[in-house]
């Protein structure tokens, strides 16, 4: 008889065997009883929502989209995608101004950068925080990332010729954070790649990857950015270049979320987008060399961001750090820091956000490292704010540990 050769369902929801592993791994469920949990919110709820959108449960907004459910699922169900897709499709409540503001990282960056010193001073003020809490329900206990006066893109503009001189080229998708808040990470990457004999160029004009828009249900805006970015990425990939990244969340968005949640086809570029830590590790493993400082010493605790776990690439950052002589390496337990981008900034999520991160914070305090390493900027804000320890991207630590001709 003719059997079905395979079965398919949206985000694989029918592959769910109800084993409930995702529920056990969900960080939200452990601190917030109002959240139904990934299995119920995802594959179980989907069957009811297909019957009638009335069965959509507003408590799905408590999902922080960390994707730990997807990592734990033995059946390949895209649980978090199901939940985000359901929120986008069925939650018809108007999107709050606060959420639009938090999600528009490009726009806010443009506004703040020219007046960075003032913006930083103002957002740091107690009175501003109280006002933002009262007006927008952005939690007053939160520390805002600082804006940088000079963007990374303009710095790259000034170094374009110098970079073009390298025979081998890669492109860099820097993301909003490097451009508006922390150009140093971008400069660190350029330093390391140059030391490997690789020149860096930018895409023809990248836009925010859109992850915050997706998480705040702004599908139209996110799709606009996705279409733009895929076009820009294609031009670069067509030139035969790899596109490197330093943010695990931007990377996951470009590679996975575009097709899964926005329906934007990225098949032509997906395999060419790679975290810089993986690229560099693979180079070194193949025999490329870097000159490390002989007297370097750092005690580093590495936190694997949830989205790095979803990519399955945490191992590359870990191995890369372990290659640095004089670096005392500790891997922190697999745990979510609780911030999840814009999620932790919202007043209604603050307590849950901090409670989720607490085991991680406690472990960092016990280990007492010189610095925490992590590939995600929002984890960095959360850990720095909650523990007082400084957090560096593995690329920055590598840049700090090597000697170049310029040094």
């Amino acid at each position, binding site marked *: 008889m003719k059997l079905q050769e395979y*079965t398919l369902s949206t985000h694989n929801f029918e592959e769910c065997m*109800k084993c409930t592993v995702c529920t056990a791994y969900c960080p939200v469920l452990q601190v917030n009883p109002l959240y139904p949990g990934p299995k119920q919110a995802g594959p*179980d709820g989907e*069957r*009811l929502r297909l019957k009638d959108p009335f069965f959509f449960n507003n408590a799905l907004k408590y999902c922080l989209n960390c994707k730990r459910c997807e990592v734990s699922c033995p059946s390949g169900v895209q649980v978090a995608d199901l939940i985000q897709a359901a929120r986008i499709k069925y939650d018809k409540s108007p999107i709050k101004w606060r959420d639009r503001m938090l999600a528009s990282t490009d726009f806010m960056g443009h506004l703040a950068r020219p007046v960075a010193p003032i913006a930083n001073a103002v957002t740091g003020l107690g009175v501003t925080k109280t006002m933002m809490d009262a007006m927008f329900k952005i939690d007053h206990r939160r520390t805002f990332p600082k804006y940088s006066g000079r963007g990374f893109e303009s710095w790259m503009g000034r170094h374009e010729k110098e970079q073009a001189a390298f025979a081998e080229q890669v492109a860099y998708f820097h993301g909003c954070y490097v451009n508006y808040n922390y150009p140093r990470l971008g400069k660190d990457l350029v330093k390391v790649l140059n030391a490997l004999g690789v020149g860096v160029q930018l895409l023809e004009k990248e836009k925010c990857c859109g992850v915050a828009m997706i998480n705040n249900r702004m599908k139209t805006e996110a799709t606009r950015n996705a279409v733009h970015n895929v076009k820009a990425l294609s031009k670069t990939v067509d030139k035969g270049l790899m596109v490197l990244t330093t943010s695990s969340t931007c990377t996951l968005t470009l590679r996975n979320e575009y097709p899964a949640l926005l329906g934007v086809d990225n098949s032509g570029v997906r395999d060419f987008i790679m975290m810089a830590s993986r690229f560099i590790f693979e180079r070194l493993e193949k025999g490329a060399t870097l000159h490390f400082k002989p007297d370097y010493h750092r005690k580093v605790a590495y936190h694997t961001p949830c989205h790095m776990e979803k990519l399955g690439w945490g191992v590359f950052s870990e191995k890369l750090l372990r290659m640095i002589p004089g670096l005392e390496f500790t891997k922190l337990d697999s745990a979510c820091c609780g911030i999840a981008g814009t999620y932790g900034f919202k007043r209604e999520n603050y307590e849950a956000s901090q409670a989720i991160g607490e085991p991680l914070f406690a472990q960092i305090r016990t280990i007492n490292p010189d610095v925490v390493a992590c590939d995600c900027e929002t984890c960095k804000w959360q850990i720095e704010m909650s523990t007082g320890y400084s957090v560096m991207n593995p690329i920055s630590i590598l840049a700090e540990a090597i000697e170049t001709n310029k040094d």
Partner: protein
Amino acid sequence: MSNNEFDVIIIGGGITGAGTQRDCAMRGLKTLLIERSDIATGATGRNHGLLHSGARYAVNDPESAQECIKENMILRRIASHCVDPTDGLFISLPEDDLSYQQTFVDACRRAGISAEVIDPELAKRLEPSVNPELTGAVRVPDGSVDPFRLCAANMLDAKLHGGQVRLQTTVTGFIREGDTIRGVHTRNLVTGQEQDYYASVTVNAGGIWGHDIAALAGVTVGMFPAKGALLVFAHRVNNLVINRCRKPSNADILVPGDTVCIIGTTSTRIPFEECDCVAVTPDEVNLLITEGAKMAPSLSATRILRAYAGVRPLVSSDDDPTGRNISRGIVCLDHEERDGLKGFITITGGKLMTYRLMAEIATDAVCRKLNIDKSCETATTPLPGSEEGSYEAVARKIWEKPSMAQKAAAARMGSRATRIQTRNTLDQALICECEEVSVAEVENAIERLDASTLTDLRRRTRIGMGTCQGEFCACRAAGLLAKAHDCIEKERADLADFLQERWKGNFPIGWGDTLREAEYTQWVYKHVLGI
């Protein structure tokens, strides 16, 4: 009138029996319903759950078509919590003769069924799962109906009107005085207790088994057992019923029912001996998948949950070997007129759709015998649970911010969802995660809806009907049953039976994810729970 004396005894706890009991009880009669198993175990619970518009019968059986559309409109009013008024499409595919569409539409209009020819492009927009190669589409007022819920609601209303119900009780013989049936001998199949009940009229509403019941009373009713096999897919692929616009044939109806969709049926004549244990064959599964994929191509890659089969209680009128040409019409036999046997009526034929009309006809016959002049009110009085209309309204009325499980309970129970006690978090805990059934809803079914086994609970609450097929809900619900009956050993046996019964439906389509799930279930029960 003593405890075991009634005005009317109804044999058979399917939809016909339940509907007849409700009608009799509403007309003031003292009623008893006897069912040897549980509610809706025969053809009532083993069909598509299609709320026919009548369009399917319009060309070949205009009388049935007219009955269907009338009852369709009535059920939307009186059984709103059992009905999902989705509408349906009759599609023509390239291999179908498009000229049949006009014959079909004309016949529908003659029968009073609204049949709107729509552009195939519009059909694709309305129902994205439909075969994009369709050449024509007609929109009709089809829908879906939950037969278990409908049956339970009828029985519940009968009880609210003073009726009594004996489940798990079989009729072992008739009490005869000369040419009159005075009552029945019965035996409870669980306790073994024997009991006689007396009534002026006994109604045989045994479906296909009405043949045996009639024989027990010494009269002959010629039934035609025709098996129909169906497949349940794991989620709703379509939101409109999809039919083929051609002469009715095999596997040409796809019905979205609650959280699943169902393709069927086949039609094969089977011997009477097989009515109690019909099995789905590989050929039938093959046919259903192949034909189903013609209507909605995604079915060929959609997970199948179960296969099942039912036996249509058709009354044989000629020697057509397929059973397709037999009228689905209602047959009410007054055995006094037909066979000279007083106090005995058989109501048979018909279909789920026309159960209410069948009940009305049977009750009219009962009332004539009892010289009672009361008119039927079942066409206008809502069933318990259907008083409020939409489940959205019900859920929002009871709970300020209903959870998914509360919304699901409102959709299953209608306004009766107010009966669910949610005093604490345990009451709100889920027994069934696939279908969102809470502890409170299961306890309600045990206390108020005569559920004594897991299979009974399944028919009343949908536990075990979801994707996991009892993997998690069965043991949890068994715990509640064991507590209610204060007996662990009996419940262990019930749990094993239930899992075996679930496997019976998985077996014919046991591949891919369904097989994985069944394996996993086996691990859980055998290796973790030691059953």
